């Protein structure tokens, strides 16, 4: 439900940007094609035109015949601009300039440093024992002997926050001698 609404809102925003001439030529062409084949979008665009006219000229607020000529002119200009050669675009102050050599070098070294730091951090997390939290109490009892008559029990205490269980050797009170 909310997904549909957000989708509609996104389309409305796109239409608004289209109307304001803020879209890139490619985007404008895509939206233009969509409007041509979609009555609902055409109606929305019409209402945008009406609102625009009402704001621009309150005297002509009764905009039953919304004037789309300026809008279509905008769209067509945008599409033409896309197909213009680069030099023409540069003259018209079109696309942004290529970053300078210094900026490219700086960007490269920043990327290299950031990658090296990321690798180091990952390696620390995976290799450093205990780096992920509390120290491990993981214990393996290889052999256990208790005095004659005594009883030994090996417990393990599990803790979800610990990486491993904690081992407890419990030797009963009545301990005797081993040998």
């Amino acid at each position, binding site marked *: 439900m909310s997904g549909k609404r957000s989708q509609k809102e996104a389309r409305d925003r796109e239409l608004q940007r289209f109307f304001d001439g803020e879209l890139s030529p490619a985007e404008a062409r895509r939206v233009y094609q969509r409007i041509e084949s979609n009555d609902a979008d055409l109606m929305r665009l019409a209402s945008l035109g009406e609102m625009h006219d009402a704001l621009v000229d309150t005297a002509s607020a009764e905009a039953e015949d919304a004037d789309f000529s300026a809008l279509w002119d905008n769209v067509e200009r945008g599409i033409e601009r896309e197909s213009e050669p680069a030099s023409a675009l540069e003259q018209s102050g079109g696309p942004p300039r290529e970053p300078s050599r210094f900026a490219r070098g700086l960007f490269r070294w920043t990327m290299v440093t950031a990658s090296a730091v990321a690798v180091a951090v990952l390696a620390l997390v995976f290799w450093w*024992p205990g780096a992920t939290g509390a120290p491990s109490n993981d214990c393996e009892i290889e052999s256990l002997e208790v005095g004659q008559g005594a009883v030994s029990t090996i417990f393990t205490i599990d803790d979800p926050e610990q990486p491993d269980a904690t081992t407890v050797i419990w030797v009963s009170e009545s301990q005797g001698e081993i040998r």
Partner: protein
Amino acid sequence: MTRQLMLGSLSALLLLLGSAFGSTRAEAAVTCTVRSMVGLQSSGGIDKRLSFLRKQLKRPPFSAYKTIKLLAKQQIEMARRASKQVGLPNGTQLKLTFIEKLLIKKRVRLRLHLEISKTKPRKLLTNTVFTIADGGTLLLAGQAHQGGTLVVGVTCKGK
């Protein structure tokens, strides 16, 4: 660009590998902390100095005690194959021998021999060999003391 990226990553990896390799080649030694505690039925809670073991001491078999109090904390340092002995509050002796330091699946583990014995007359009460994670704690309990039960925590960390 890709070459610089690879060089940067490689140098970071080499630095880490170098430090890890260096630590395994170092002379093996261990520092162990022996904590003597007593578990009692009277109310009092878990000693604040045992906060790092609080979760474990609140679970069975220790959940039966309303109080767990730290009686003594002793630190011993041992080289490989060396032994050290400490006295426990109930008069028994705890002897630790550091057998070796192992590197299993890139993680340090410590192998130790532990003995608890009575001195007069000499009686060996507990004798165990164990392998524990670096910085890990082994708990031993069961001997009667001060109307409760003696609990011994052995925490060892390799150097």
